[in-house]
């Protein structure tokens, strides 16, 4: 198995660093990185053995200017590994120093007493030659038999999908509602209304957002406003928004009636998907 990639775009390095920091903040025990010819996919399972709940696929063309990849076998031309996002984030923060950003960041799969992902960073220096900083991040390779466990699931098409641009506002509201109760009710309508609600013994507390752009909704022939709602664990969505280090431009909330909430954080072309299962009252 061989992997060699060179990143020269500072923006790409920054994107990768932000993604690694976000995943690190989610306190996932282990994150899986899948490298294929087209995509680098980071995915995360909630607990060992359960399905993937969070993933982000980055296009290799955007990250790397040069890429060499030889996967496990010819038909399965992929490399799968477990790594710690916190270590990747700390390795990538070296890509900036007082004199400027790195000239290039090279990633390599190496075996120095144990498999590592080596980051070789060329930094600008006062002298003639650039300074090189090499970080070896230890990884665990995943055997091919376990690959299916780490593939992200097929998400069913949501009933309604709403785009939220004011991420900060929604995050503040969710944090406040979370203090009142652990369960959060989300309701979206096809006319662009979003309602976040909690219920406690003291009363019902709801925040209404209006005129949100609706990305997608099921067509109803009779022209009635279609409403989809579900209850979720407030802590999960609060934690997701708290770990966001991506400079998210907008959120996309896909609701599947009483089953699942599909959250997509988007920054530039990078989409981080997160699935939150609905809970019963």
């Amino acid at each position, binding site marked *: 198995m061989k992997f060699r990639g060179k990143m020269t775009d500072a923006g790409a390095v920054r994107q990768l660093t932000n993604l690694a920091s976000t995943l690190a903040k989610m306190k996932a025990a282990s994150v899986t990185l899948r490298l294929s010819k087209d995509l680098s996919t980071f995915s995360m399972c909630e607990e060992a053995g359960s399905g993937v709940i969070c993933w982000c696929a980055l296009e290799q063309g955007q990250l790397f200017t040069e890429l060499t990849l030889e996967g496990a076998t010819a038909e399965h031309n992929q490399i799968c590994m477990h790594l*710690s996002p916190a*270590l990747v984030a*700390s*390795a990538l923060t*070296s890509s900036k*120093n*007082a*004199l400027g950003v790195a000239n290039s960041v090279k990633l390599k799969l190496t075996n*120095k*007493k*144990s498999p*590592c992902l080596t980051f070789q960073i060329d930094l600008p*220096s*006062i*002298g*003639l*030659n650039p*300074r*090189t*900083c*090499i*970080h*070896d*991040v*230890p990884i665990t390779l995943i055997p091919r038999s376990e690959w299916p466990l780490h593939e992200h699931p097929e998400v069913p098409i949501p009933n309604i999908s709403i785009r939220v641009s004011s991420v900060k506002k929604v995050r503040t509201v969710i944090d406040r509602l979370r203090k009142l109760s652990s369960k959060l009710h989300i309701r979206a309508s096809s006319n662009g209304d979003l309602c976040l609600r909690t219920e406690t013994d003291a009363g019902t507390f709801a925040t209404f957002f209006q005129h949100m752009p609706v990305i997608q909704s099921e067509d109803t022939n009779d022209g009635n406003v279609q409403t989809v709602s579900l209850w979720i664990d407030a802590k999960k969505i609060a934690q997701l928004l708290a770990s966001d280090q991506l400079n998210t431009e907008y959120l996309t909330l896909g609701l599947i009636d009483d089953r699942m909430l599909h959250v997509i954080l988007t920054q530039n072309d990078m989409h981080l998907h997160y699935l939150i299962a609905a809970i019963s009252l």
Partner: protein
Amino acid sequence: MKCHIPSANVKVLGKAIQTLSRIGDELYIQPHADGIYFRTVDAQRSAFATFDFHRSFFLHYSSSSNQASSSQSQAQPEICKVAMKSCLSVFRTQNINVEMCKLFFSNNGRMLVFQLVCRHSICKTHHVPVIQTETLQANYNKSTARNKLITQSKLLIDALQNFRNNQDEITISVAASKMILRNFTETGEFMRNTVRTEFALESTEFDSLQIGVDATITFNLKELRALLSFAEACSLPVSGHFDNTPGRPIIFCVNNQPAFDAEIVLATMSSNDTTAFSQSQSMTSQRSVNDSVLRKRPSTSIDPSQSTQKRPTPAAPTTPQQPVLSQPPITPQIHTEIEEIQQLHWEDDEEEVGTPPELRAQKFYFPRCFKDSTDSMNTTQADAVVLAYDSDGESGK
């Protein structure tokens, strides 16, 4: 001893004490004819720091030898050891209003007084009790070091940014006009949750890098970081002196002649061999060299517990995977001076010539097992008295 420090230098003194506080917990203040030494050593005796403030640093300086005082205080300088935390609190606030700082002893040498004379006739006085009258001295020689580097502190701070804060030790290798910094990892087992980092710097980046001999040394990062922050605050270059001889310390200096100079001496581990055994060997030799390098010379009352204290391994990483370093066995090859290290004595027992060594050791530890005392005929009256009942029979567990 009595001295007055002008306002500009109060900040420097404050920063110096902050740096010292990051290294040790006790501050040794030793006035001498030309100035005052502020020194400290860390708990493991692996780092020694000294700040020497010369006469020109002070507005007014008089050591006790100039004072016409009673014969007692004239006989010896008023040296002392005080708690670092107390001195730190004197300089904690920003002190922009301080016009002058007076430093002197009171109460017959039992109290050290910091008096901050501030603007608007405000005067803040801190009385710091003296713990002990003791000097601290280290034997080291900077000039014999064959490798020397001089650089602006920014360069090293930048380089150290790449090493995470939780990494305690760093290895620097110099060869062929290049310096490589590496974080130190235990070579016995590869740590699965640490990043191994390597950072290369060309000699052109330094103000000066003289490599007399190719060297690879490992030392603690915390104290170096403290000195670098001091150097950056004062905008002064840092110089380093080291050698390749195993166990020789590395010395970092910040010079601001004629006002003051600062030096920290850090114990090193020569990490040329990668086997665990040789590591434990080098740690032992390091510890013994340290003991000869750092010798406390108490002048008046000696605290006996301190001098007989067993010195733990210097610069040992405090990870649980390191049982070999905590209690290394003393091997016959260590012939450097060792002060009071408790040894596992397996001396020849003349009375028992002919017994194999294992049995000898067992007899030392388990004498009763070898006594023919197990049959009931030999039990004395004392043995028959039941001192405690069986715990099994008592409570119904």
